[in-house]
Each structure stands twice: as C-alpha cells, then as structure tokens.
C-alpha cells in the first residue's frame, strides 16, 4: 500500500495535535479529536499543494525564459542564482515590495477579488490532479470533470477584474476572454470525451492506470492530443491565442491596471494554468508517472520520488512545446480564433470521438475485427 499525500498529512496532523494534547494543560486536552486531526490534515494538504505548485510555476517561468532565449538566439536570465534560476524569485520579491495602487475609478471589490479568485480557482484544480502514486490529494470518481469545470471558471473572473478596473484596454481584454471561451470549450470537451470513451471513467487515476496497462493514449488518439493541446493553449491564453493580453494592441490586456503584488498574482496564475494544462495533457494522453519498464529504469522505479520526477519531466517537455509554439507563431485575430475553433477543431474532435468509439467497438485495447 502506497502512502498518499493525504495519508502523510493525516499522520503529520495526528503527530502534531497528539503532542500538543500531551503538552498542554488539561483544559485543552481535546485538541486531538478526530475532527480536528482531519481539519488540520486538509490544511496541511492544501499548504503542500500550494507550496509545491507555486514553486513549480515559478520554475516554469524560468524554463520558459531560458527556452525562449534560445529560440531568440540569446540566453535568457543568467545572473541571479545558477543560470538565472533565482531570477523569478527576485522578481517576485521586487513586485512584493511595490506600493499597491488602485485606479481611482475602479470598482474596488471586483478589482481586488478577481485576481484572488483567479489564483484560488486555478490552485483548486491541483487538488484533483494525481501527480504520482504518493502525491494523490484525494480520490474523486469525477476528478476529470471537476478539474475541467474549475478550469473554465477563470474567464469569468478575468472578465470581472477587467470590468472593475474601469479601463478600456482592460475591458476589451476581458471581452475577448469571454469571446474566446466559445471557440475552444467545445473541441476541448470533445477531445476529453474520446479519452473517457476509451477508459469508461471520469477518474483521472483510472485513466492513468489504463494507460500504464495499454500504452499512452497519445498513440491511438493523436488527433485528440492535437485538438486538446490547441484548445488548452486557448484556455490558458498563451500565444498564439493570447488575445485577452495582446500586449501589442491592448497595453497589457485585461491586467493593464494591476500592479505590484496583484500583477504578480495574475502573472503567476497564468503560469499556474500553463502548468495545469501541461499536467492535464500528460495525464490524459502521455501516460502520467509510471516509468517505462525495463532493465535500465529498474533502479529508478524503486527510488521514492521517481514517479514525481518522471511526471515533471514530461510536464516540462509538454510546456517546452508550448514555448516552441509561442516562439514560432503570431497571435491570431478573434475571427481567426473562432474559425480555427469552429471550422477546424470541432470537426477534428468529432472525427476523433468517432475514431475512439470505433476503437471501443473493435475491442480496445485488444483490437480485433468485429465478428459480423
């Protein structure tokens, strides 16, 4: 039986509260009640997920900067830390020290709430993604649906933030976010449907375990992978689908009016969503953490963190493809995005669903011709 993240947290909280109950005077002896242990365990899980994903997102920014540098024949951040690894932490520290400024005409509630909700919902998804055998926050039979549902909250908060900032560029950016939603949401879900058809489950754990048995879904569902990746690019608003940000036309897009730590939060959330997008691609199509079995990897498999590391390697490779796309392609217009979404992606994803259904009819994963 492998230990899960939640199990570790529960043990930790048991230990903490138990010690506390023993040390404290008898009046507070009840602190190690099962309910309190449970509550602290949940908080610990949250903190662990928060810390790891934040650090991961920041390192992802470094990864993007370095890759983008090479794509542009330069080096990217070089100075702070090894090969500029700490540059983003320094940047974050700098933004942290900035004076927060609110536009005079802004609707303060929406203005402050939007980045917080944007960040919080993006973090919430990570509560459903199994990252490794030992890093499963919890078991949810509908985790895939849940993750996708929370993932598509963000445009709403972007729109609220953009509207409350009371700046025309922000508003245009926010409007674009809403318009963009129509273009990618349908092919995205169709691509997911094909995976669900093959596994017969909405549980990410099952999806991954099936892939460990039957091989990556990227092979039979290569069309689905492409559609899903393109839709994810639009979902996380990365170039070439970064219409809501569009620095060249809209100053800084929907977050024009955000400065200091609020800007850092939106920026970090952008990358957090990039991270989640890469996670989802790896989970759904690229076979999650299990290492390829073989004599070479045998010692690695026994290494406790091997699963997490292997998973992260895949995630970083997927993100490198995002960066590659960013370095190569120009931003599309809104009408072009809708054309890509409706005229190309939806037919392709439908084709993919039909193909997946055909695979199931032919008895995936042990294909045979249907007996007539």
């Amino acid at each position, binding site marked *: 039986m492998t230990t899960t993240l939640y199990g570790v947290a529960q043990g930790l909280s048991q230990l903490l509260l138990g010690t506390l109950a023993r040390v404290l005077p008898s009046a507070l002896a009840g602190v190690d009640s099962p309910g309190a242990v449970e509550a602290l365990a949940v908080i610990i899980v949250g903190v662990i997920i928060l810390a790891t994903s934040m650090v991961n997102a920041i390192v992802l920014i470094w990864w993007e900067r370095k*890759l983008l*540098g*090479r*794509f*542009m*024949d*330069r*080096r990217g951040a*070089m100075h702070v830390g090894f090969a500029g690894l700490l540059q983003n932490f320094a940047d974050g520290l700098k933004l942290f020290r900035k004076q927060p400024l609110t536009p005079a005409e802004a609707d303060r509630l929406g203005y402050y709430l939007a980045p917080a909700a944007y960040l919080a919902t993006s973090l919430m998804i990570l509560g459903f993604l199994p990252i490794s055998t030992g890093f499963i926050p919890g078991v949810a039979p509908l985790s895939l649906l849940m993750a996708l549902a929370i993932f598509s909250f963000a445009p709403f908060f972007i729109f609220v933030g953009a509207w409350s900032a009371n700046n025309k560029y922000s508003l245009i950016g926010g409007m674009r976010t809403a318009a963009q939603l129509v273009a990618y949401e349908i092919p995205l879900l169709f691509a997911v449907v094909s995976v669900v058809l093959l596994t017969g489950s909405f549980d990410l754990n099952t999806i991954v375990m099936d892939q460990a048995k039957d091989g990556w879904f990227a092979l039979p569902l290569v069309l689905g992978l492409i559609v899903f990746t393109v839709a994810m690019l639009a979902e996380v608003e990365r170039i070439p689908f970064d219409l809501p940000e569009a620095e060249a036309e809209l100053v800084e897009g929907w977050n024009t009016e955000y400065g200091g730590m609020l800007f850092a939060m939106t920026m970090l959330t952008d990358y957090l969503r990039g991270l989640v997008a890469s996670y989802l691609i790896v989970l759904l199509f690229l076979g999650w953490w299990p290492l390829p079995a073989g004599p070479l990897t045998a010692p690695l498999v026994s290494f406790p963190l091997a699963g997490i590391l292997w998973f992260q390697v895949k995630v970083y490779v997927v993100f490198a493809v995002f960066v*590659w*796309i960013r*370095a*190569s*392609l120009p931003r599309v217009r809104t009408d072009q995005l809708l054309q890509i979404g409706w005229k190309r992606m939806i037919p392709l994803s439908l084709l993919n669903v039909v193909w997946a259904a055909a695979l199931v009819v032919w008895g995936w994963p042990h294909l045979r011709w249907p007996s007539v």
Partner: protein
Amino acid sequence: MATDVKGIELAGKAKGTPTGPPVKRTPPAPEPSGVVSLVAYPMATAARQFVRSLWRPSTILYPYERLEDPTFRNEVKVASGAPIGVGQIWDNYRGVHALNIRTCISCNLCMFSCPDTCIEMVNTDLGGGKTKKCPEIDYGKCSFCGFCSDACPEGCLTMTASYTITTHTRSEMIYSPERMFAVYKSKLPMNPIRLARPENEDRILLDEDLCIGCNACARDCPTKCITMMDIPKPTAKPGEKLPRRIWKEPTVNDEDCVRCGTCISVCPKECLYWGGGK
C-alpha cells in the same frame, strides 16, 4: 484641360481628357494559408534557430565575457580582416579619452568643439608649482563623438578602446586631466591621431585701424606665435590728434598658429578676425 489652382492637371476630371494607358498593377501575392505554411514552416524555422543557438547563442555574456577575450579572437574581425588581438578592440573605438597633459597647450579647442558642453578647462598641477588649464570631461554628458580629439591640434587628446566607465556616483563620471593622463600612460589601444589640417584655412587677420597694440593676444596665444612688432609712429599734422595707443602691432606666424581663436576672443577692440582662406 482641368487644372487646380496651382496649375496641376486634374486627371480625368474634364470630359475627353486623354487618360493614357491603364496603369499596370501587380496582383497582391496570395495570403499564405494552410497548416504547412502557417504552422509547420514557422515552427521548423524556430526549431532550427533553437538548435543552432543551443551550444552558443550569439550574445556575449558581457561582464563575464568580453569581445576582446581570446575566445572571440577568431570570431570577430576588424574591417581589414585581421582578427582582434587579446585586450584589444577596434583601434578606432571611441572610448575613454587619453590626455597627454605634457603636450597640451591649453588652446580650448577641445572645449569649443564639444557639442555636449561636457569639457571644462581646469587648472592642472604639473608639478614644481606650475599649473596649466587642461580639459576635464564629464562622461555623464559625453556622447563619444570624438570631435574634441579631432580638434586637438597637438594630438594630445585622443580616444582609447576603454569602454568600462560605469560608476556608482555621478561625480565619479567626471574625469580630471590627471585621470585621463593615467589612461594615456596605461597604453590602451588609441585612435589614430589625425593632425592633417585643411588646405588654405582661414587665418588670423588684423584690422590695423582698430588695433591699440595692447599685447593681450600675444600674451594669451597658447602657441606663442604672435609677436608684437614695432610700427612707426606717424608724425601728427598740426591740429590732428593721434590715437592713444602703443605703437606695436601683432604679427601671426601662420605655421605655428593652431587656429584656436583665443586671440580673437581676448582682443578688447575686436580687431582680429578670420579670413584669407578659401
């Protein structure tokens, strides 16, 4: 034929105006379309660039690496094709100035020619109680145009290949003559000195009627090329009043004159002027 107010023909306005053959326009190139030219080709180009710069991007990691490092000796070549040697950049690089305070004649030409007014003539201790005015340069203002070193008639103000002038304070950016003398003595690669002067330059001319023989020009001439020559004192006719003056007149040794204009600016009667050139 219809014309507008300026008499320019208004094409096609009047009936029956011959319009000439129709202008041939090249049809606009068709917009690239398709996955190959819109996605695959740019991505392949980017990938090629990525692979090319994986080992070494074009950028030089400046504070850690410099162009003059031996690594780049074979990579960077001057216009003549010769590779740059160690510790050397282009010999016509316009960097920090080098000043030979021994040969400076305090002619002010560098100060006058500076477009950014960053040169000030300051008293410089030459040792032995002797001082002279030498240029002091504020690199906070200098645009490294090189006009000053071009103007220097003695070739004592030149520019070197030293480009590291970053400082923490603004006052450190002001280089005193002594500091530039130290740069001179450090034997950095220097710009070639151009002393060639244009042919038939204007020279200093004298309006003899105005001169009062005050000796100011000869006193201040940095090259001491002005000599005060005696001129005969005319005998006054009865009733005529001779002007109050010293009966001497400046003569300029044209070979030695560096055209600094000091004499013109110190003359109290404005009797010296430029002229005689082509």
